[in-house]
């Protein structure tokens, strides 16, 4: 067994353990779907680390043995799409935080704003009459 295999199995085990623990503790956002994805991804990594030749078997089954570059490109595309989706989600959350913060600031100063609005209204009336 090579060193990279040991490292990969160790990392995968930790990630699997954390995933199962979070799901078992019913932590926020931990769904069965999320757990399944985790088990598939990290379980798959463990299997590939222990049985490296399994990738050849998978490639043969999928029929991509001669198109390895295409597979790598697809992988890149998938990663790019994931990052894109993540950044979009972060952007949306940031906008929501700003909106909430703004609404809170305006609502906290509501009385003062209303008082000043009335003052300005009165002054405008006086100016028009003058």
């Amino acid at each position, binding site marked *: 067994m090579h060193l990279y295999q040991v490292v990969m199995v160790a990392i995968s085990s930790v990630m699997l353990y954390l995933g199962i623990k979070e799901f078992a503790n019913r932590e926020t956002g931990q769904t069965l779907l999320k757990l399944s994805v985790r088990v598939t991804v990290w379980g798959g990594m463990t299997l590939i680390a222990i049985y490296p030749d399994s990738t050849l078997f998978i490639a043969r089954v999928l029929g991509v043995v001669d198109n390895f570059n295409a597979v790598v490109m697809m992988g890149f595309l998938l990663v790019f799409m994931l990052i*894109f989706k993540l*950044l*979009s989600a972060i*952007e949306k959350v*940031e*906008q929501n*935080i*700003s909106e909430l*913060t*703004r609404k*809170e*600031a*305006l609502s*906290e*100063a509501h009385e*003062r*704003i209303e008082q*000043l*609005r009335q003052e*300005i*209204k009165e*002054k*405008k009336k006086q*100016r028009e009459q003058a």
Partner: protein
Amino acid sequence: MQAYFHKVCRHVFQRLRAQVFRMMQTVAIVIPVYNEAKVIGSVIEEVRAHGYEHIVVVDDGSADDSYLIATAHDVLALRLKINRGKGAAVKTGIMAANILGADVVVTMDGDGQHDPADIAPLIAPILEGRMDAVLGSRLLNRETMPFKKKVANSIGNFITWLFYGLLVSDSQSGLRAYSRYAALIIDTKADKYEYDSKVIREIKNNRLRFTEVPVQTRYTEYASTKKTKQGFINGLITLRRMIWKLIA
């Protein structure tokens, strides 16, 4: 001699007319601040000394006493509990000014780099009903600007033109004035420094009438050494945000 006399008369007439218009309309000054406790008091006093009584200070989650100082100066002080960026603070201030019923909204930086004496020429085209938005331009007054800033601003202007299709002489200036119509219609989700460029996009998309007016900038030691200013790295971050918002 006669031409000079006419010029003086026209200047006096324009000043008087602007003064009359100003007396008839409500001008609100929006000042976003982030950790400006050292100078915000004097900035408010200076603005008030120039005859502007409706001042909205938006504290963008400062860690110092900026908010308390602003409150003590009897202005409308708003506080964003989390630091959300200059754009978010300015937008909040403009919203408050709209609720107050301001006819003209002026935005200016809270670090004292803008001279309140520039507000009068800035709002004059709006008060006279000729423009919807007026951008203060430091580059129309190039002598006072440090070389590094000139280069950075030129890059900013080019990028703003490239992305939003409107070439202005100072796309990053914080000293700007909007009519009530413009203040209501300009809507951008930009929270950070890219807000200034996004406003230019809004001006173009909404076909607002706009002009640029030369303004003075006081490059004080305080203003130029502030960590949160739009420096080279922040400029790159702003560029990244602008690109991201184009593709996302």
